């Protein structure tokens, strides 16, 4: 197995782990951790693609920007989680059901 096939194999495993974490847990915080794992797997694809096409500098530049953006998104998401916990007093995803129609 070549190095790159191995890379993408691991990436697929990581994606699966992330989605499994999202599906299996009720706590919003754990779901966010699952999402983080998914997005890290997606970022690994970028660096792997850069290495494969001998374009590592470009891939690194993209990746650093992506990490910065992701930090902002996660910070906003965490703020939502904390606020939700203060208002509702629980972090259970199944209790987010007040909007229905």
């Amino acid at each position, binding site marked *: 197995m070549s190095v790159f096939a191995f890379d993408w194999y691991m990436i697929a495993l990581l994606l699966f782990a992330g989605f499994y974490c999202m599906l299996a847990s009720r706590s*919003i915080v754990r*779901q966010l951790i699952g*999402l983080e794992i*998914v*997005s890290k*797997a*997606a*970022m690994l*694809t*970028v660096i*792997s*693609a*850069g290495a*494969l*096409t001998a*374009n590592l500098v*470009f*891939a690194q530049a*993209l990746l650093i*920007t*992506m990490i910065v*953006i*992701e930090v*902002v*998104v996660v910070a*906003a*998401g965490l703020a*939502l*989680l904390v*606020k*939700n916990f203060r*208002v*509702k007093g629980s972090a259970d995803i199944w209790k*987010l059901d*007040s*909007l229905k*129609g």
Partner: protein
Amino acid sequence: MDKGLLAYLLIPLLSAVVIPFAARNRPKLADLLANVTLLAGLVNLLWLALRPSVIAGGFADIPGDGFSLLLVSAVYLVGLCVTFFSAWFLDEKLPNRQAYYSLILVSVAAMTGVVTTTDFFTLYVFIEVLAVTSFALITTDDSGAGLEGALKYFFLTFPASALIIAGISVLMLSLGSLSFDALRVFMASDIPSGPVTFGAALIMLGFIIKAGVVPFHTWTPDAYQGAYAPVSAHLAGIVTKISGVYAIIKLATLLRFFDGRAQALSGILMFLGMLSIAVGALAALKQTDFKRMLAFSSISQVGYIVLAAGLGTPLAVMGAIFHLFNHATFKTVLFLNSASLEKSAGTTDMEKLGGMEHSMPWTSWTSVVALLSTAGVPPLSGFWSKLLIILALWEAGLKTYAVLALLFSIVTLAYFMMMQKKVFFGRKSQAAESSPEVSAPLLAPAVLMSAVIVALGLLFPYFYTYVKMVAERIIL
């Protein structure tokens, strides 16, 4: 980056930075600065697109591909309506007034970035900026419903971003470049397009989730219903359309669906479009909350745009672009009217409202104009865009889709008529007795947008020339 329109990105951004400092102790100054920024931008854009010499020349002098100019105008138009409405709507006690206007302006800047960019990575960056501002805007009033909507939006758009990143890296592997032009040139050549189409399909899947097309639509009604009232007009009118639907249309033209390249993707996209038309319209029939019904109607209208984009012939792309612009106008009117109802009657529950026409005639009649346009009744603007889409489907030999699209257009009329009857027409209810018409400044944006709807319908030949020019430029 389209450099001709860069100023429309930078000026709102600058204004967003200035507002929290300049207006720290004077909340009214925040209203003023936000409105002046957007009004100046809109006037400037109108001059760019509608001065007599440009109209006489058949819009040949438009900078860029014309598509971005049209959408930047739509962004500014909806943004101005929302900020003007907010200036009179916001609670005096709302502590974060400056932050609210800053966020609206940043989201306008991000949307301008989305529609003027020319490569996938910049597109991703601006989409994420837009998503972050949306989370914050939805929770403006700190209500439990707003938080719930924002969390659902967050949990569904975040995996979408991961898909877009994965698609970008597949494109890097197979195409070696991320610019739109490289993809366009590649698709025009005869090289087998497998991996490139796969990368583009991953990116498109991400945008389908962000647009709220049917299998992934669950966040849309919750986010629209839970959001702070003027923000739901901003979100439904323009934000989700730019962050999802725009990129779908762009990818559809770049992948040259009309050439028969990437045929499987085109077929799937059309199927999903039809599915959203059907599910959105049928779900809207049985809603009891005004805002939630509008949200399902929005899903259904997005279905028309996606269906046309999936077909991808020049006529269908024209229809999609035109319907995207129309959707921004009529959905803004309806959501702003729901905000007026909320302010005046204190609820958007359709069972509790009734006979509001007697006390709120202006709100009622602007809603009628907007809903007739949504349902595609001539001579309003929605008729022409739906006509273009259905004609394109018929011409391409997809008669089943054409007939279904037409039928669900009638269902659209049905649920809107039910809404109008329950909320505005009929006997005066208790709510109608005690709720007066909202003040003139709150009505002005809805009246302006209704005027745009009627004007676009009546001046259709001019607009047709414009959209035809756009379709020719982005397809060839």
